[in-house]
């Protein structure tokens, strides 16, 4: 139960910090950031799911979070250079995985409570 509070609290804290620090991305990079955010979101849901299943691995989680985030942004950037809308691939893959993970988390919670 504590983990939910922790996640919620940290997310809220992060949002508050982010809203209050005077950092604004150049418009050019906003698109890549959005893909990176999606990747990060996917990693977090994947982490929660693994945590609930008891197969959580710290190294995999942290490295996956960092690598996915940068890889997604890099992929979107490369797609822009090549004239291929590669970011769509990232959006689809991460979107599907987020929903899958959410579904598993939901089922797990329903079973538990």
């Amino acid at each position: 139960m504590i983990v939910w509070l922790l996640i919620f609290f940290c997310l809220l804290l992060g949002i508050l910090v982010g809203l209050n620090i005077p950092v604004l991305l150049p418009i050019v990079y906003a698109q890549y950031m959005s893909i990176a955010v999606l990747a990060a979101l996917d990693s977090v849901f994947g982490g929660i799911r693994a945590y609930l299943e008891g197969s959580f691995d710290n190294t995999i989680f942290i490295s996956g979070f960092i690598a996915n985030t940068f890889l997604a942004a890099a992929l979107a950037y490369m797609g822009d250079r090549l004239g291929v809308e590669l970011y769509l691939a990232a959006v689809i893959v991460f979107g599907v995985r987020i929903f899958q993970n959410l579904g598993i988390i939901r089922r797990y919670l329903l079973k538990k409570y």
Partner: protein
Amino acid sequence: MMQNKSSQISLAIVCLVLGVMLAIQFKTTESIGEEFLPPRVEDLTQKLIKITEERDALSEEVLALREKLENVRQNDQAMADLQDELQKVSMAAGTIAVEGPGIVITLNDSTRSLKAGENPNALLVHDQDLLMLVNELRASGAEAISVNDERITAMSEIRCAGTMILVNWTKIGPPFVIKAIGDPVMLESGMLIKGGYLETLKFLGIQANIQKVDKLKIPASSRPMNFEFANPVKFTEEAKQ
């Protein structure tokens, strides 16, 4: 339990980072939405300013035209206006000599020796070179141009004729002296512009020299003005089209 604790900590840190990223992205997206409007307003403002300027210029033209009309009615003034107009048109057509400040460009064939297998044409000044230079001079605001004292007019040709170059049906050869009347500074900087044609010529080894002159004279065109085929269209007919 230890495993549990460290995993909670890493989850917490990652969530913190995610929160910051989300917030920044949110702010950025919001600001983009706002920034999309001002350029449009700016665009419209620019257009408005431009059109207003255009309107002002046009109304000024109306005033000038009215004044001219008034002058035409008064005969004396009309003669003076005609003289003035004739003077200007003659200068443009090159039928009278003109003088004023400007620049003198001297071109001569390259003196460097040919490398093996090189085309000897690369060392010569060609008709295209003169044409390009004359064109660049015009673009830099030259008001009158001559090549080897042949006035360049709207009817002048510059073309290759064997070993010589024809200008106004007159054969000329190197060294080529191009005179141009205009703002000397403007003309010179127009010629010396990086990546300009003169730079290319110099790169090829052609001897080129630019000199600013306070007063130079450009003769009238020697070419007779005959119009065999072209007939002027009556002003009223033209207006109908």
